[in-house]
């Protein structure tokens, strides 16, 4: 299957270092195995010239898995906060979001939720299920379909000290509230000389789903990234979803929390105790030596899947989930670049003006001297997301393209 990808100049500068061919059996620090009910459709097999076979986690391709399963030592996540020593409890990502929201609403009576169908219906993605019964109609508000005004109302309420959580049923609908988000939410703290803070959280699912069509598959992080005064974070696992939700609610700044339609059913074991994730910190998913792969949200899983293949081929990618889309965690990213000297960015935004474009500029500006190769950025195609399944698959970056890109980068 011909895979086409972007950002790969045919003339990659001759690289002095060559990837080690010895198989590095460093243990993989990837997140614990979780169910991927959303990925049933994505099955493909790519035959490589050296005879090894790419696989995906689809059970249909299981015969290929036997070859490699012992190399892919999936340990439970040993990052400091999500410790496997504590029992914790298992839940799905949308439940983690709800847990975070509920805990914050319990903790602070000023937190309220507003959005379409969040109250009596329980939320179109069940994130707010049960909250209306528990907290009442004044704290979990069903709004009419009027994004511009209810986002404005959330911002007005935030000016007085309330902490609303505004849900866009789909991030794409927030385009109708762009004026309120840009001018009032982002800028009021500045134009009032610091008198007002806007502790609002705007959240909702976005990204390319399963054949949802062009208007319901938008990636708004690229549109919002220039707005001064807001912070943007993207969650990708139940652990960081809950942590980021809580941190966002507690933050005095307006935070836009990007969730992904396809990640809501991820399951993970998370700690019982109270925790938050730092809003501007990137997450080290898998330390490595050869190449830094920067990604976020759903593409993290495509990258991790590609990482398995890459490990088999003898590469050692370092995977960082950048999580904080504005501002970028240049500290973590910088340390990684200084170590590996090669950067691959894998994102779901479109090529033009996406997060990857900004990240490429930021990394080039700051770490140019440490780079052994031009930064490669794999993004979605600059097209409206088509409905047809095969076309939609080619719009988004697939693991095979990531593998090819790493190979190109590490030549």
């Amino acid at each position, binding site marked *: 299957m011909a895979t086409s990808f972007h950002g790969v100049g045919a003339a990659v500068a001759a690289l002095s270092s060559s990837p080690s061919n010895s198989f590095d059996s460093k243990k993989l620090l990837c997140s614990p195995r979780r169910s991927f009910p959303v990925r049933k459709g994505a099955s493909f097999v790519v035959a490589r010239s050296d005879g090894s076979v790419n696989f995906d986690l689809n059970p249909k391709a299981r015969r290929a898995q036997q070859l490699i399963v012992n190399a892919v030592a999936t340990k439970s996540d040993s990052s400091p906060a999500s410790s496997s020593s504590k029992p914790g409890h298992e839940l799905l990502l949308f439940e983690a979001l709800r847990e975070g929201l509920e805990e914050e609403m319990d903790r602070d009576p000023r937190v309220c939720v507003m959005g379409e169908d969040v109250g009596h219906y329980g939320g179109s993605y069940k994130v707010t299920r049960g909250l209306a019964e528990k907290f009442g109609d004044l704290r979990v508000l069903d709004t009419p379909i*009027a994004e511009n005004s209810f986002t404005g109302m959330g911002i*007005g309420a935030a000016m007085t000290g309330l902490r609303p959580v505004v849900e866009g049923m789909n991030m794409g609908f927030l385009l109708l509230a762009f004026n309120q988000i840009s001018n*009032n939410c982002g800028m009021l*703290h500045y134009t*009032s000389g610091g008198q007002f803070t806007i502790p609002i959280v705007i959240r909702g699912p976005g990204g390319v789903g399963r054949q949802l069509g062009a208007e319901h598959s938008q990636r708004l992080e690229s549109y919002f990234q220039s707005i001064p005064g807001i912070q943007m974070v993207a969650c990708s696992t139940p652990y960081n979803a809950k942590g980021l939700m809580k941190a966002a609610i*507690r933050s005095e700044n307006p935070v836009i929390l990007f969730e992904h339609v396809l990640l809501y059913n991820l399951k993970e074991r998370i700690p019982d105790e109270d925790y938050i994730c730092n*809003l*501007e910190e990137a997450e080290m998913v898998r330390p490595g030596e050869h190449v830094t792969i920067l990604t976020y949200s759903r593409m993290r899983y495509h990258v991790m899947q590609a990482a398995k293949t890459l490990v088999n081929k003898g590469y050692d990618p370092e995977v960082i989930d950048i999580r904080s889309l504005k501002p970028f965690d240049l500290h973590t990213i910088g340390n990684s670049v200084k170590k590996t000297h090669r950067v691959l960015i894998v994102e779901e935004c479109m090529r033009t003006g996406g997060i990857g474009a900004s990240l490429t500029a930021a990394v080039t500006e700051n770490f140019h001297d440490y780079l052994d190769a031009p930064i490669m950025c794999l993004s979605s195609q600059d097209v409206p997301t088509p409905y047809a399944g095969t076309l939609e698959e080619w719009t988004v970056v697939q693991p095979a393209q990531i593998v090819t890109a790493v190979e190109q980068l590490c030549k």
Partner: protein
Amino acid sequence: MALSYLRSSSSRSANLLKPLSSSLPLRRHISTDTTPITVETSVPFTSHQCDAPSRSVETNPKELLTFFRDMALMRRMEIAADSLYKAKLIRGFCHLYDGQEAVAVGMEAAITKKDCIITSYRDHCTFIGRGGTLLEVFAELMGRQGGCSKGKGGSMHFYKKDSNFYGGHGIVGAQVPLGCGLAFAQKYSKDETVTFALYGDGAANQGQLFEALNISALWDLPAILVCENNHYGMGTAEWRAAKSPAYYKRGDYVPGLKVDGMDALAVKQACKFAKEHALKNGPIILEMDTYRYHGHSMSDPGSTYRTRDEITGVRQERDPIERIRKLILSHDLATEKELKDIEKEVRKEVDDTITQAKESPMPDPSELFTNVYAKGLGVESFGADRKELRASLP
């Protein structure tokens, strides 16, 4: 003195005031006199889906004098801002409120500082009404750090949090959903206060207004939407922009009241009525029939879409300051000379403040990065190396 005070308040003869004016500053006893006076508003109120309040307004000499002084101050301030703009000390946009002062002072007389007001870019006088100082106004207009928004907001972004003045917004109509959000917060906190969200006849055609009104009516929010109808949306007359210029009726299921916006007492009565209504029954729309003498902003001469005769006509017949002046004189609360003295004093105050503001310092360059983010949860963007801060956004 006590006897003559009693006599002067009970009788209406002008003669009694003359001997006093030489020995005492007249203002002292008028400014504390709260004997009620009842005045009729210029025109009756027109209502939609509610019972109009009575035409008779209770006021007192102190209040009338305060109206006069405040409106004279606002008028003088706006005219001074005009000259400053032409002298290029004020840049960008400058939208002047002269002619509409009665709305600002009348509203303030009916409410407390705990009630919220939010308005559009024509906010200089509303800011003064909420307790802002002249120096903050001029410093902000000239971009100095002593301004109410530290010079970073400008003419369209005046805010005063401690007296619940929420600005100051440049995008037409965007402040109305914010205002309904303020009302929501008031209901949430059970404050028994209301929010006045002001907008113009141009903004009345914005969709977000109806969205916000729908939500406010659904949730019974104490929101009062006030349309300051000066009959021109920038350069377009209202009959060319709105199929139905009866803005007070636009709420349909939400009651409305049409008020003569050039009569400060009518405005006061209407706002008092609206506050009581909103606390009990939810949103209400007030339409203030008012007029602006200047153009939309300083770049608009104001005479290409209306005749000079119209402007002078309104100035002669309906000017808010003249109305209060006539009231004061007819009730013998002060003499012509005293009122002129007040105006002179106000003029001097404005001139002195401008001189002071002209000399006040510009913001420090580091202020470029302050107040982008509020500090919390480590909002500092470090450079590549955490040891070297590229831009620390406090």
